[in-house]
């Protein structure tokens, strides 16, 4: 792999950029791989990357029905934070966040991780207490957060209206090293690195069946024919139910549409990410200048990747209330992704009823921030056949035992 750098750009500029190589190869599938990962989203690609990097397993195929990064990874609002309440959540999200810190250098691809700070507004007494609890939990989990007062909120984000008539801002949970990243670049950076390790990323190839023998997986059927494998990782987010069905088991998950939208770009006016859970909305400003906005999920299951307008209205209303100056900005585009939601709003990383078949799913509305951590933990699971400490609590047996990892405790909207 030719390294990217300012010098490389200067070199190429001299020859009209004719010398740039492909970021990733476009191979035909081989007959068999040690590991097949289904789904070239962030989690699938990161899983493959850490299989190679941490365990030296590189005879790997990542199979993607569309274009890599085209699922939720390429549709999300890119908030990265780790100020979670429960220990096992904080552990994996903080692992991920810390990997984001060095991801550009690790991948030699600028993923534009921007630790600009994330604040979650407290607008009721109840929320104040909730976030104070999170701050205390984070202090013991090694996650740096702080509960700040309304003046500090205003100082960090001058466009917030802190004394709104309905829900004055009473404070906020502030994570200074949270922020955003460039979602496509995360997928592309991992893809380039995987391809460089000799892994095959096979796009426009849908997995349509899972083949097994004696209770163990032996391969998959795809729209490009059957492919064999020793181990299989299902990392397909909103399509997890469909894949589980092929593999012969059911999941405690539902697929629902989650929407987001952006405004037309304006000059920078907001350097931090703000989440307002009482009124249900969150916003940040991209490096292009667009206000990036998201809200809650639709109340019904679907696979269409588009949502209902009612949610857009609810979200925009909340944000016009929180940031009155946006009233005269315009919505440029709205879109949706299908997220995989579990009963306790926490992911599943673990073994499945089918031998040698593993799953990473259920990230729901908030798995972008987890990509490197999720990939790290899933790679360990697949390589060793057993979950390591990061994934230990996330097996789906927890739903049978009643051992939930419930984050909705801490916040209404989770991203």
């Amino acid at each position, binding site marked *: 792999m030719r390294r990217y750098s300012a010098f490389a750009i200067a070199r190429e500029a001299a020859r009209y950029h004719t010398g740039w190589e492909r970021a990733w190869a476009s191979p035909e599938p081989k007959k068999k791989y040690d590991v097949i990962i289904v789904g070239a989203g962030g989690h699938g690609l990161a899983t493959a990357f850490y299989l190679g990097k941490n365990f030296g397993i590189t005879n790997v195929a990542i199979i993607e029905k569309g274009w890599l990064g085209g699922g939720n990874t390429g549709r999300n609002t890119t908030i990265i934070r780790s100020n979670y309440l429960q220990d*096992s959540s904080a552990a994996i999200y903080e692992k991920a966040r810390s990997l984001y810190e060095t991801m550009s250098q690790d991948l030699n691809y600028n993923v534009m991780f921007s630790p*600009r700070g994330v604040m979650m507004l407290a607008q009721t007494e109840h929320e104040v207490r909730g976030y104070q609890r999170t701050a205390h939990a984070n202090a013991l989990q090694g996650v740096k957060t702080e509960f700040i007062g309304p003046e500090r909120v205003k100082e960090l984000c001058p466009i917030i209206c802190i004394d709104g008539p309905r829900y004055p801002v009473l404070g906020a949970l502030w994570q200074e090293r949270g922020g955003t990243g460039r979602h496509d670049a995360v997928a592309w950076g991992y893809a380039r690195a995987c391809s460089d390790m000799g892994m095959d990323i096979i796009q426009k190839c849908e997995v349509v069946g899972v083949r097994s023998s004696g209770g163990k997986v032996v391969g998959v059927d795809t729209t490009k024919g059957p492919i064999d494998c020793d181990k299989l990782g299902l990392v397909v987010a909103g399509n997890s139910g469909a894949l589980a069905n092929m593999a012969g088991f059911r999941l405690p998950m539902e697929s629902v549409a989650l929407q987001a939208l952006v405004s*037309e770009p304006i000059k920078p006016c907001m350097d931090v990410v703000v989440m307002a859970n009482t009124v249900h909305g969150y916003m940040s400003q991209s490096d292009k200048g667009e206000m990036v906005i998201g809200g809650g999920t639709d109340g019904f299951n679907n696979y269409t990747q588009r949502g209902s307008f009612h949610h857009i209205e609810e979200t925009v209303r909340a944000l016009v209330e929180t940031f009155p100056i946006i009233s*005269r900005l315009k919505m440029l585009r709205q879109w949706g992704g299908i997220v995989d939601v579990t009963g306790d709003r926490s992911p599943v990383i673990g073994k499945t009823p089918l031998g040698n078949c593993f799953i990473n799913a259920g990230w729901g509305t908030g798995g972008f921030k987890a990509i490197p951590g999720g990939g790290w933990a899933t790679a360990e699971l697949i390589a060793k056949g057993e979950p390591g400490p990061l994934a230990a609590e996330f097996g789906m047996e927890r739903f049978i035992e009643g051992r939930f990892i419930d984050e909705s405790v801490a916040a209404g909207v989770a991203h």
Partner: protein
Amino acid sequence: MSTRLSTGGKYLNRSDQRRFTFNGKQFTGYEGDTLASALLANDQMLMGRSFKYHRPRGVVASGAEEPNALVNLGTGGTFEPNQRATTTELFDGLTATSQNHWPSLEFDIGVANNAMARFFPAGFYYKTFMAPRAAWKHVFEPIVRQSAGLGQVPKDRDADTYEHFYAFYDVVIVGGGVAGLQAALAAGSAGAKVLLMEQTAHLGGRAVIDGGEVDGKPVDAWVADAGETLDAMPNVTVRLRMMGAGVYDHGYVLGYERVRDHDPMAEGPRHRLWRIRTQQIVTATGAIERPLSFAGNDIPGVMLASAVRDYVDGYGVSPGDRTVVVTNNDDAYRTAISLKKAGLEVPVILDARASGGGALADEAKGLGIRVETGKGIAKVKGGKRVTGVAVCAQAGEGAVLEEIACDAVAMSGGWSPVVHLWSHCGGKLFWDEDQAHFRPDPNRPPTSHDGKGFVIPAGSANGPMDLAEVMGDAHAAGLAAAKALGLKSGKAAAPKVAPQPEAAMEPVWLMPQGAGPKLRMKAWLDYQNDVKVSDVRLAAQEGYESVEHTKRYTTLGMATDQGKLSNINGLAVLSDALNQPIPATGTTTFRPPYTPISFGAIAGEARADTFQPLRKTPIHDWHEAQGAFFEPVGHWRRPYCFPRQGETHSDAVNREINQTRKSVGLLDASTLGKIIVKGPDAGRFLDMLYTNMMSTLKPGKCRYGLMCNENGFLIDDGVVARIDEDTFLCHTTTGGAERIHGWMEDWLQCEWWDWKVFTANVTEQFAQIAVVGPNARKVLEKLGGMDVSKDALAFMEWKDGQLGGFDCRAYRISFSGELSYEIAVPASQGRAFWDALLVAGEEFGMMPYGTEALHVMRAEKGFIMIGDETDGTVIPQDLGLNWAISKKKEDFLGKRAQERPHMTDPSRWKLVGLETLDGSVIPDGSYAIAEGTNANGQRNTQGRVTSTYYSPTLEKGIAMGLVLYGPDRMGEVIEFNKVDGSTVAARIVDPVFYDKDGEKQNV
């Protein structure tokens, strides 16, 4: 130069002059002008700067597709960035400034990026700015951010208002061009209830400018007649300045009406968002002309041929004195003819087609215009304004044959149907080889619940460009919509139009065809985002082969016009680079809205005081007059405390508690949820809902109950009163009333639909007032009318009667540990009853208390609070509430779940009381720490605090918490963490701090 012509301008009213300013300069225009036409009339071709390279930008289009001419409009509370000059109607006093430059539009430092453009190809930022690590956040990103963004940031609160409309139609027709009008005539005369919306201020669309004859009349006369006919039809509504913003599932259409953007001094809302349900949608949204990709095609003065025609004929403006026309189709000849007829020079028409044009070409030649076939533009000359073009053979690599001086270029690369609304909800497209465009695939429309299509494209939006074909197609679309509704076609006939055959267009995706890297780096695709042909080719070369990858890597089509001009050209270049046919490349997804719509309109009336409904108890006004400090609880506002002169909130809370415990206090408990559950199966139903047994409760008695969800977690609590054999009244928490009512209905409607039970949420029907404290009985006795003695109304009983002449229901329940009555009166009597109580209580020093005093008193008494002791992960067993879980019942919601291994695990944290050793208050949310760390390096914990207060009664900090093996560790001291890293020591004690034996409440 661009200037106002002395005659012409179909849209203008030259008798009404309008003044406006642009970058502080005074200009004039006319009624009917857009800001863009008025600026052109004043020779202001330069209107903005591009996003990445800050290149000078002039207006390129004349409508909603404009990517360049974006301005900051207005000032203060009516300031708005990124307003398209082409869709901004001129009004008197308009002020606009140009965007994205520093220090000025003419001289912009940012243009240095342009000089460096070679080093900033597509995606360059993914490849650099990586070292050193902190540099992205602290150096590079701030630079990128500062140069990004287009318009300025609004500073003030929006001074305008907005509103929502809800409307229902049989047929919604989007687009008021000739196709939309004809479709409306056809559907309307069949009897359908029709709404036709047109985004501009005029009906007729392009045809008004392009001309032709319909039914033997000039097309503009036909348009006027059609408008009148529709106006006269009672079942048809026509709205101007209203855009079809989006099509959603189940025939849901979003209409965006700009009510008075053109007349800001008028009264009323600025925008109106129409939320429409309709059976059928006809998209008569027309087509958009495509630019051609040649070097320098972004220099101000290069415009779409149709836009040039619009400015000349519609607005009486000449974009330039000498305009070169360059085209791959016949339509652009119309522009040359218009220019010539307006007395302007057209030095040459460059027709890329080797065989040239048809009848229109002959007409142009007849006017003496030079026509060159098989030719194209090698390069446009000029900087902030076109000065000339270098002509070359289209088939070659750009060898210059000749240079022609000109100050404007009118280009046409063919037309693309506006398929956005067709596509929003899943309508599919196919590639029309002849016209080289994507158009709706009639076999794959967006489908409704019945699997049938509900969107019908009409006119140019469906592909046809010839007027005769357009009218025929639109008529058929209108009839099809009516037919889908089961209506018979009415008397409207298909209009007669003589076909005007044109010579076939020939796709031209790059001009000249063999343009090398140097020219490709100057051939723009996306003007606003500065994406060039070379960028798309680079994306393909680097493996970003999916059209979505290319879009994201290059930012093609991601500007404020969402690729209306650039997308097709871009994906043709991509297809060429990948050596695959265009349909194999496909399009990116079309998402709402069609053009950007204001957040104000989306939010509608819901802002500030009307942001959400505010629920007030009947006593709210009194609280307010007393200067109560309120806290939001759900949609309610509840007094947190009633501070007096000079008191802090905590002073007030302590006073309220002391007085209540000492004598008597008063609480407005009206917000408490009250749900009536009635019917022969009501008892059975409540037995399933609550963990305890409710069916055995006797009329006249109350019982405290717990509700769990299917996962066994405690979700609500409250006192249930049995009114009669068939009727229960269930009290819920304030925040839980709606949720619990919904929960009940969920079970009744989905699972136990055959049970004979009704529920009604009567929360707001009653005002409920708690009279609390040792003197509570005396206060009520003063009011008189009901025997409230212990014998007549014992603890956990209720009784109907009169107090002080008010009809009421009195409950003997207590959430404070004191002697306490909760008295419900009809809401309309609430305030009067409150006042009567105040008078009766005066001699006892009775005073109201707020939610905080309520919280502290219940904590002193060891009562749990939903939301404090519970958080969705706590089961009643954790809280020592096993006594409230029936062992006799076969089933209740949560029972099975509570038997799961993790729920019966003895190591679950359990409720205890906590007393700090130093009397301080444990911080909210604190955790009890344990030795060592877990496998992930996190500090181990053994519990957490759930409620923590200063108790004025005990004069020290008290708390409740959940602690590992807590109830077995009474007396043990454990450490709670603080966020600063220090700890506070607390002793594990019984959670009931006050009146352990209940001697005070049960008197």
